[in-house]
């Protein structure tokens, strides 16, 4: 799959995860391609953030609500739960602090959609094993010294992080390098080996309300006490 096709494929899979009439924040929205698709096909209300000035200008000129800015600095301005979905497509590996970003996504949105290239794919493992050099592939086409992808991780790493952060994986879609689609949660064996790209729909664990006996009414909904 080439880069453009891979992004289109990514978008159409993201679309399948999104219900009608929802409010969406697309982080790294480019010129608004995914926003346009979701407005047209899902009747979504969309907002976007884009770091690249020219892309942001294009998106604004195309009529989308886009803020030219840096997600790692500017996400804090959004209020808790102000979006139904927050989307981070193919960019988590390029973030300075992926863990912080992940928790911001689920603070701002009720649900988050994250997609990324799997560094545990067999081709990548094989390249490193045989050549002893940092792998360069179609989906990760950069050399180590000029890559924007500064945090490589595998599906296993990501699942561990979600577990650690009490994040629930509601749905997960894997893609092989040939574009074959499967459900990551169902095919346990070899998943980290064959998944080329992964898309996750995430939310926080819904804890039972904690009842505290008190004369004052205290509600502690969704509060995380311990894992």
């Amino acid at each position, binding site marked *: 799959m080439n880069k453009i096709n891979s992004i289109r494929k990514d978008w159409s899979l993201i679309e399948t995860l999104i219900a009608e009439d929802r*409010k969406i924040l697309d982080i790294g929205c480019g010129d608004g391609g995914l926003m346009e698709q979701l407005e047209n096909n899902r009747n979504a209300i969309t*907002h976007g953030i884009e770091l690249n*000035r*020219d892309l*942001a*200008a*294009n998106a*604004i*000129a*195309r*009529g*989308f*609500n*886009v*803020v*030219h*800015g840096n997600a790692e600095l*500017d996400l804090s*301005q*959004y*209020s808790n739960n*102000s*979006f139904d979905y927050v989307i981070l497509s193919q960019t988590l590996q390029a973030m300075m602090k992926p863990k912080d970003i992940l928790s911001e996504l689920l603070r701002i949105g009720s649900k988050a959609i994250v997609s990324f290239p799997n560094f545990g794919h067999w081709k990548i493992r094989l390249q490193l094993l045989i050549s002893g050099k940092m792998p360069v592939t179609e989906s990760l086409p950069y050399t180590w010294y000029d890559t924007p992808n500064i945090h490589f991780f595998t599906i296993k790493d990501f699942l561990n992080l979600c577990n650690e952060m009490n994040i629930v994986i509601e749905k997960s879609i894997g893609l092989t390098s040939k574009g074959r689609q499967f459900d990551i949660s169902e095919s346990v064996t070899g998943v980290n080996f064959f998944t080329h790209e992964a898309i996750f729909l995430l939310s926080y664990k819904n804890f039972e309300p904690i009842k505290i006996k008190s004369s004052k009414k205290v509600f502690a909904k969704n509060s995380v006490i311990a894992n």
Partner: protein
Amino acid sequence: MKTKFTTDTKLETEIAYFENINLKLESGDIIDSFKLAFKTYGKLNADKTNAILVCHALTGDQYVAGHNPITEREGWWSRMVGPNKPIDTNKFFVICSNVLGGCAGSTGPKELQNGSDVAYGGNFPSVTIKDMVKAQSLLIESLNIEKLFSVIGGSMGAMQALQWVIDFPDRILNIIHIAGALKHSAQNIAFHEVGRQAIMSDPIWKNGKYFENNEVPERGLSVARMIAHITYLSENAMHRKFGRKLQSRDIISFGFDADFQVESYLRYQGKSFVERFDANSYLYLTRAMDYFDHDETFRKSIEFSYNPNNHLKYLIVSFTSDWLFPTIESKMIVNQLNSLSREVSFLEIDTDKGHDSFLLEEPQLDDVIKGFLTNNFAKIDE
């Protein structure tokens, strides 16, 4: 409300008279009657949905496009407003009025006091951005326009656009806010104060009564303009334009002539400004900008507005080299709107032309303004 309209053929402008209207100003003073000079471009459509108010900056006027009889030049935003321009007058009905307190035909210190043959001068009441917008809203009302599609402005014009959001959100659909801020900063007030001191220390100013002898405090006003003009540029733009190049000479004079091109340029700017602008007006309008401050209150006035404002769309634009209204000031507005989940777009344009960029050739500014207006208009037209 009955408003009388006339055309001033000498000034090539429409004038709206608001008589016995007792306009209460923010200061508490009341102006019983006043007039606004305005220009319109394009045609109002049948549903009256295509009206755009353009708000001018400190030394601007109602001559946005076309011929300006005061300067004998093209209007100040003729590159932006006109047929097939980014603010397309084939599609939109564009209105621009000279602000209250201005000097291009609207009631201001230069005009005669009601019922007398003496000009206001220093007796003119203090006006604020809020007062200017209130006067504009009366003009829009008298033109029978219920809702403006957009309010657009840069610098002091951006302040007015923001004031529209706060005071009359139910009468507008979107704003384009360029190179502005929630407040006039201490540094900006400081520069204005130097300009005002230059005017007031000119012996011809005479407490604002210079018109009695048909004189103009030229020196003071031109120095004020020279200072202000520096703040509208950037170091890089000045260097690119002038460097240390000498003016009409090969060697320095060892004197205080305008040896350098940059000096000569500033002197020219000061001199030509005196011919078109009133010194008292300059005092009043700079003061109005100084008093502008929504720093603490903006978020609340949006969140708890009496009038519905959820429908509003915002386009906020800043420029990298603008040190008078830097990007951080625009971002404060964007942050507060985003924290309220409002529909806001923001772009920082990369340019070395400083604060004045909004008046100059900036293709990206054209693109976003045109796109923002066209796409949002298409949505209401559906």
